[in-house]
């Protein structure tokens, strides 16, 4: 039985009163709560991996379409950067190239992922305006898409680190495997950062600018070019820098060291706190994103 009965409809007078079609023997169920909707959005987005998996690759393919080396341009430009700066700063800091080059290679490759996740997280919903205003997809799809694209880029850049590690025969040993949980935590954080910054930036367009400046400063305040050992009093310069802990968690194992307990605790704390704040904000404002963009 159809919901609406065409025969029972009537044209209303022009006073603008609202109309309902005739005899509807049907009351829709009450809508799910905002919390349930936010949760469904985040889980449903993850389940749409076929879509964002394809979109991530598509971005890379299109960017390098018709170029001979394709996405390996990423690898080559990262290689040039690391090689050039590595040799220069090893000279300036008067340290051994064999020790410094793997450090700066790991640092640059990882910082690329971290800073792109954060800065692209800001524009994740703004850039997806065309899709958001047409299709009722979970909004988190756009965040997974962005994170996946940056992960693919990271994988291409990581080749530079592997080459450097082989060249200087770095053997991370079993400690090296610790980079896996570190990287997984980093990606997990990338998702909440994208959801939260994307949401806030959709409403307040100054946020991407602020985040951009912060990331530029953070690059110099975080030990990427310089080694953490150079700081005599690590307490406040390093331990209060969240980026340091993320870097440490992945970089240290890759170089065959064990990351400090403080870094593990800091990153776990940031992950929990970040997701908590994100879920609260997402519950309240997810439905407004389509209005803001």
């Amino acid at each position: 039985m159809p919901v609406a009965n065409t025969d029972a409809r009537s044209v209303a007078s022009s006073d603008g009163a609202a109309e309902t079609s005739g005899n509807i023997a049907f009351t829709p169920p009450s809508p799910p709560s905002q919390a349930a909707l936010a949760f469904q959005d985040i889980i449903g987005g993850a389940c749409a991996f076929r879509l964002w998996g394809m979109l991530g690759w598509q971005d890379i393919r299109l960017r390098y379409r018709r170029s001979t080396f394709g996405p390996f341009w990423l690898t080559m430009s990262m290689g040039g950067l690391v090689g050039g700066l590595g040799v220069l700063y090893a000279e300036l800091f008067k340290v051994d190239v064999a020790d410094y080059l793997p450090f700066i290679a790991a640092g640059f490759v990882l910082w690329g992922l971290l800073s792109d996740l954060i800065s692209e997280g800001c524009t994740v919903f703004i850039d997806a305006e065309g899709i958001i205003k047409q299709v009722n997809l979970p909004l988190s799809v756009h965040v997974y898409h962005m994170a996946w694209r940056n992960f693919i880029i990271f994988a291409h850049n990581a080749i530079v680190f592997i080459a450097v590690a082989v060249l200087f025969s770095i053997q991370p040993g079993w400690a090296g495997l610790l980079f896996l949980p570190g990287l997984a935590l980093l990606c997990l954080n990338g998702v909440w950062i994208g959801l939260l910054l994307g949401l806030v930036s959709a409403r307040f367009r100054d946020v991407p600018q602020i985040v951009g400046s912060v990331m530029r400063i953070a690059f110099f305040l975080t030990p990427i070019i310089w080694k953490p050992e150079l700081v005599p009093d690590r307490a406040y310069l390093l331990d209060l820098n969240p980026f340091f802990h993320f870097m440490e968690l992945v970089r240290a194992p890759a170089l065959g060291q064990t990351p400090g307990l403080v870094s593990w605790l800091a990153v776990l704390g940031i992950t929990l706190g970040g997701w908590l704040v994100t879920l609260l904000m997402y519950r309240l404002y997810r439905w407004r994103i389509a209005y803001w963009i």
Partner: protein
Amino acid sequence: MNVETGFQLTGVTIDFPVYSADSRSLKNDLLRKSTGGRIARNTESRVSVRALEDVNLTFGRGDRVGLIGANGSGKTTLLRVFAGVYQPTLGRVWRRGRVSPLFDWSLGIDPGATGYENIMMRGKFLGLTPAEVRERAGEIAAFTELGDYLAMPVYTYSAGMKLRLALAVGTCIEPEILLMDEWIGLGDAAFVEKAERRVDEFVNRAGILVLASHNPALLERNCTTGVLLDAGRVRAFGPISEVLREYGEMNH
């Protein structure tokens, strides 16, 4: 009662916040215009546009709905509410059925990718698995009549050719609710006829068609029920011919 496909809007109001407008530049006596929604100011003196106001509509299987109204009367916003893009500021929306939004042929159309790649991409956007798209690729390709062009990048296509591609994919996903905004008229005569036949087949399979247009002839041909929007309100609702007459009177 077993309701398989349909939607119901109860008291739906949509307010768009406007952040870029200087609130002081808007006169206190609110402007009531024949085009566009009402411009209002809420308690925090923030400017907002009321795009839809207290809309109550129910549609079920086999309904062919024509949306008509002046520019800015809320047709596209209403289509987006049907599509589930906007959760209303006030009121409730209930919807069941796979929606195929055909508002904009450029969705998931990548100019650098080939026609075949775009079929795959758009199909995935609309919720098909890769296997399902491959299964239907032949049918989609046949409907577009683009032949060898499907292996060419889409930037070599004309607007009408892109439209063929988008419509072919959009109607191949076996949607239950088809939402269209005007552009069916963009194709050449032969294609418009073909597209209309396809839409007919679709509605006969007990889908719901919602077509927004300024073109009374197009609506008369394709729809049975009409909704006349005026500044975000439903001004008339009923058989398409009567709604179109009302629209005609409104413009005189």
